[in-house]
């Protein structure tokens, strides 16, 4: 069997100006230029985008589920970071 050996790319699409790029999916392509074009053909054929990023999947470093607790739990007990933590007297405006 012959294999393509085309690497996997992750595709990020900006759906409208003013919004950030969002992960849309992935695809295979031999190089970045074709990855971009394949992404355009596949992920924006219903007018879903105004800008595209493609990134080799192998270039993404992800946090590990094993490290979920040390990574994310410490942020859960700091309610003072959120505006709802603070009590403001009634009638005070523009705060």
């Amino acid at each position, binding site marked *: 069997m*012959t294999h*393509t050996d085309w690497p*996997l790319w*992750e595709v990020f699409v900006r759906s409208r100006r003013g919004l950030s790029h969002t992960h849309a999916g*992935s695809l295979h392509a031999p190089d970045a230029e*074709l990855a971009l074009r394949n992404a355009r053909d596949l992920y924006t054929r219903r007018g879903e985008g105004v800008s595209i990023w493609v990134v080799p999947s192998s270039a993404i470093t992800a946090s590990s589920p*094993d490290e979920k607790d040390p990574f994310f739990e410490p942020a859960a007990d700091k309610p003072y970071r959120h505006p709802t933590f603070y009590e403001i007297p009634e009638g005070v405006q523009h705060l």
Partner: protein
Amino acid sequence: MATAAARDTAGGPTAYDAPAGPGDTDAFQRAFDAAVAADERIEPRDWMPDAYRATLVRQIAQHAHSEIIGMQPEANWITRAPSLRRKAILMAKVQDEAGHGLYLYSAAETLGVSRDELLDKLHAGRQKYSSIFNYPTLTWADVGAIGWLVDGAAITNQVPLCRCSYGPYARAMVRICKEESFHQRQGYELLLALSKGTPEQHAMAQDAVDRWWWPSLMMFGPPDDESQHSAQSMAWKIKRHSNDELRQRFVDICVPQAESLGLTLPDPDLRWNEERGHYDFGAIDWSEFWDVLKGDGPCNEQRLSRRRQAHEEGAWVREAAAAHAAKHSNDETGATRA
């Protein structure tokens, strides 16, 4: 679809976290069970039972294969579409199927298999695709019947998959279901035009519905008591409804739609059951289902050999692009070093 985070595929699509040691498996299993019970999504790098992973790979691959094999019976009519409007619609639909195959292969790749591996298995006959595509498209009306009935049955099956416990599969299905609704509607509209057209066109539409009705009902799989994978898949929330439940839902939807089309469904036992609140329907010929599944359908050999041929004939193109990319990246690396 909510903002889907970048896929957790650091180190490539085959990387996933195995349990650290045998002693930890129970803890991982408990965490997995709790996540499924709480209707949370399982994501690629989460620990998951081997059997869950294997079931997903089998199901997603089969689904992806169905999309790309399913291009053939409809592509059969692109060059003969009877109006330019219909031709554009059909080309866009067949294109969508290629796209859906791509979304699904990508979802499968998050489980540590490559698309090439899956295609090899398809070509070798070691993984299946939906048997429905082993039936021939003999007339233009078949394009309509596939849209209305086959895509209709697929949607009935697929909508619950948007809530499947495996995140990448569920997200692919959300995108697919959005696009599929156009497929079903165009099929219905096509049949309606034929049904209201000349007597010859009407007969063509009726003939297509006669041939596609029963195979469509078989698309939901064997009855619940004979379905080998169903119970475990329901427990894992890969599947949300039983085969028979979805089949009944489909029949209930189709009967009034057929009436509006002015076409009949080829089942003398089809009638409303007041007590059940559902339509009763006749017995399905499961021997035909198993025959087609085992390879004795009208087009099994044709579909698979065409697919293999396309893959083999495309090999030199894929190799050329890979070779070009290798040359190009070497050039760049050289320049950077200099």
